């Protein structure tokens, strides 16, 4: 396998982009990433997306985005792993470059959620769950995660308000990220009084639905060095699966796919969880952040919430997470989020995170989840000095 680096990043703000189409959002991110990389024409394009068929009645995004980005003729694909689609696109691009199929590939994540009504978006998101045995019983995607949260609180004795630090931290970090959707801090009291959606999950436990696109240019390490770009290396890349339906797991509170993919990615990078300086985890819901922390080995089972309560997830803590707002507050344009995470990790490693900059960080982890823990992709990114 060849050494692989990220040589360009691009992103649009996460927002309700009423005036920008699905395709144009992706084009903006791709063009920005290519400009950042100083590359005109990559050989391959991978577009991560979940909802284009359901909400925009559009498939075939590989060719569509390539054409509109001025890249007609290159090899291009849409990649889908529900909410983890963007990370899957990054992994596909990584494998293409590492395996020698090409030297430069672009991974783009895009989601255009406001082309459907909120009800349509909710129904489309539920397609990440088991269509026949979860969604048919009236479970929204929120409700499935609520089942995990309720059980977690029961087994480990937490109260709902104990999950507050995840959302408060995310909003705090988003407040200074110009690309974030929710740029206002929230208080503990606001968290406690938030409106229930699927008990115990409230509005402020949940990430926001928005439009957005992010892209990265992935190239061989050799090319990266030759171009003289700030070099961020993909030191580890791995994916793993679990059952789609939560009820098919023997231990619903353990994200085994997060465990497997993070262990593989860490092993590939030759580091351990303790070496990681910060993590962009899949905090679609506060419970998801807690379970991810535990599965990746950042906290023992049942202690993910305790880690947050202890202040360790803030930018001043032992393991900062959601450093630019995370899914919770930067916003969760589902199929794009996995790429946003990688873009933000590169911002941190390059020292381009503005007032959110973590001083001296060298190793970052990104982890994206498709479904309620069903398909989990982890990347370890390393700054090369």
């Amino acid at each position: 396998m060849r050494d692989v680096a990220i040589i360009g990043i691009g992103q649009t703000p996460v927002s309700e982009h009423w005036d920008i189409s699905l395709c144009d959002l992706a084009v903006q991110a791709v063009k920005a990433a290519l400009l950042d990389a100083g590359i005109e024409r990559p050989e391959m394009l991978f577009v991560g997306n979940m909802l284009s068929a359901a909400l925009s009645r559009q498939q075939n995004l590989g060719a569509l985005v390539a054409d509109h980005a001025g890249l007609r003729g290159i090899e291009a694909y849409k990649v889908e792993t529900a909410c983890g689609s963007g990370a899957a696109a990054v992994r596909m691009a990584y494998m293409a470059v590492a395996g020698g199929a090409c030297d430069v590939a672009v991974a783009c994540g895009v989601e255009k959620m406001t082309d459907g009504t909120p009800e349509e978006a909710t129904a489309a998101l539920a397609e990440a769950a088991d269509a026949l045995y979860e969604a048919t019983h009236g479970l929204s995607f929120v409700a499935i995660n609520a089942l995990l949260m309720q059980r977690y609180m029961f087994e480990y004795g937490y109260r709902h308000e104990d999950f507050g630090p995840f959302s408060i931290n995310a909003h705090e970090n988003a407040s200074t990220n110009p690309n974030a959707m929710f740029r206002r801090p929230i208080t503990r009291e606001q968290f406690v009084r938030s409106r229930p959606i699927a008990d115990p999950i409230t509005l402020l436990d949940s990430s926001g639905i928005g439009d957005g696109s992010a892209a990265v240019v992935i190239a061989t390490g050799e090319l990266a060095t030759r171009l003289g770009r700030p070099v961020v290396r993909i030191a580890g890349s791995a994916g793993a699966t679990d059952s789609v339906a939560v009820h098919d797991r023997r231990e619903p509170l353990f994200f085994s796919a997060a465990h497997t993919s993070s262990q593989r990615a860490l092993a590939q990078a030759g580091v351990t969880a303790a070496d990681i300086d910060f993590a962009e985890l899949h905090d679609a819901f506060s419970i998801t952040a807690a379970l991810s922390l535990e599965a990746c080995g950042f906290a023992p089972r049942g202690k993910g919430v305790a880690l947050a309560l202890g202040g360790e997830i803030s930018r001043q803590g032992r393991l900062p997470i959601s450093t630019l707002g995370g899914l919770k507050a930067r916003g969760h344009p589902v199929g794009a989020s996995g790429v946003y995470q990688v873009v933000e990790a590169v911002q941190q490693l390059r020292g381009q995170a503005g007032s959110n900059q973590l001083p001296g960080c060298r190793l970052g982890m990104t982890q994206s989840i498709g479904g309620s823990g069903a398909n989990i992709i982890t990347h370890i990114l390393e700054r090369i000095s």
Partner: protein
Amino acid sequence: MSIPMYWRTSHQRLALTGEVCPTCEAKLFPPRDICPHCNSPAKTRFDFCGRGTVYSYSLVNVAPRGFERCAPYVVALVALEEGPLLTAQLTETDPQDVFIGMPVEMVTRRMREGSEQGLIEYGYKFRPCMERAEA
């Protein structure tokens, strides 16, 4: 669900019929033909007794389309007596009375209605176990 999707699974949904793995004897619901525990073929029919306990639950305040009629309603992961977990709505109960570990039993109910003209989907829900008749 489309008509074929509904029809293919209607017996399982009406009668709570799953499978038992002939190799490791795990009881499987929903039926899935390859045992997720030992990866052996599992196509032997198994009828569940319909009793279990609540493993977790949530009160759905914002109902997906087609489910507004019963909203707000309680959904649950139910641990069946024979082993597997399944996802279902609870019925005949007040949300504040639900607790983890609550004994429940399967009943057949209307699940979802697309419209006045549409197919009525019937399937399993669970309710607190009824006290049996006095001996």
